[in-house]
């Protein structure tokens, strides 16, 4: 009996190890089934070696599709309060048209998660901060709602909550009187998942958004950024955003 259970255990252990190894095997150069290197235990703090980023391919982004915006709203519990001018906007779709050639672009714009975030520079209380892994967040416990960061952000990425909120997602606390913005779905990233917008884009078959570690030379995003021309919006400000755009 004991020998049998030992055998079972060892077989199970072997299966777990093979699954982990298979997950680590690259499906294609830079594309892994599971990003083992990025996996972090819940009791481990975010690492400064990681720089989370997004690569958005504007050629693949479908005009008129707003799956990423919808997914963001569902994941983070953002509902219309009946005041569209002041409703929170974590991500928006922007349609661009070159008037001379007529070429159109469609792209989502959200918090660009700058390496040198101006929102952090101006915050008088330290509520606006950059996490070690490059995600720019608002600590609502410290935010006094002064909205300096909204004025400082060149991407208009932050919103102020004007109305009382109820029925929040337990993972995403939100409330009246605080500034908020895209968190890169930090609660999902901490569970080694992808942001909701990226997942929705992949699910819709557009594959226009890639999420990953810009510092990891083996990650798909780092390899794409190294191989293909990509731009950061308002790169002239030298804020080094973590969100890169391809084909813009």
């Amino acid at each position: 009996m004991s020998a049998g259970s030992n055998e079972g255990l060892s077989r199970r252990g072997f299966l777990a190890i093979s699954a982990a190894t298979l997950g680590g095997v690259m499906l294609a150069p830079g594309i892994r089934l599971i990003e083992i290197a990025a996996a972090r235990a819940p009791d481990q703090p975010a690492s400064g070696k990681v720089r989370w980023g997004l690569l958005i391919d504007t050629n693949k982004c479908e005009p008129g599709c707003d799956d990423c915006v919808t997914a963001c709203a569902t994941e983070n519990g953002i509902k219309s309060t009946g005041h569209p001018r002041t409703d929170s906007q974590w991500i928006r779709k922007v349609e661009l048209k070159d008037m001379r050639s007529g070429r159109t672009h469609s792209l989502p714009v959200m918090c660009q998660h700058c390496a040198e975030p101006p929102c952090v520079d101006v915050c008088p209380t330290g509520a606006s901060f950059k996490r070690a892994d490059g995600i720019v967040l608002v600590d609502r416990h410290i935010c006094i709602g002064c909205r300096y960061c909204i004025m400082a952000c060149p991407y208009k990425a932050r919103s102020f909550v004007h109305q009382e909120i109820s029925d929040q997602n337990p993972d995403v606390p939100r409330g009246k009187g605080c500034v908020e913005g895209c968190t890169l779905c930090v609660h999902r990233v901490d569970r080694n998942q992808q942001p909701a917008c990226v997942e929705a884009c992949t699910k819709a078959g557009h594959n226009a958004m890639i999420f990953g570690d810009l510092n990891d030379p083996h990650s798909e995003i780092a390899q794409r950024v190294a191989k293909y021309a990509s731009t950061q919006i308002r790169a002239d400000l030298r804020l080094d955003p973590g969100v890169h755009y391809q084909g813009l």
Partner: protein
Amino acid sequence: MSLRGLLRFAACLALALPALAFASGRTPKPEIIIANPGHCVEPTEIMRRNHPQMLLHQRDLTVHEGIRTSKYSLKGCVQCHASKTTGSVLGEKGFCQSCHAYAGVTLDCFECHASKAKLAGATP
């Protein structure tokens, strides 16, 4: 102490005793309904006195460093302590509000945090 003083003290004590004996009965106590007894992360006495410090410590670790252990998380508290009837820790007989209302301590957590437990299998 003089004999007269001692007598006065004894008389006072005799008068006060019935009042002390009835003290526990006369004082209103909050009605605390514990949905899942015996599963808390620390003994009751420690929880009653120290839960704000635990939450304060955990919130900074979670927000700033991304440490999301479930032991002292507010989400964990709500998940276990939400009322079986209302599904919330708020409300007149809610686990958090019943005691906070009694003690006259403002309960700010749930202006931002979800006060209802996430149902098993429900999508976020």
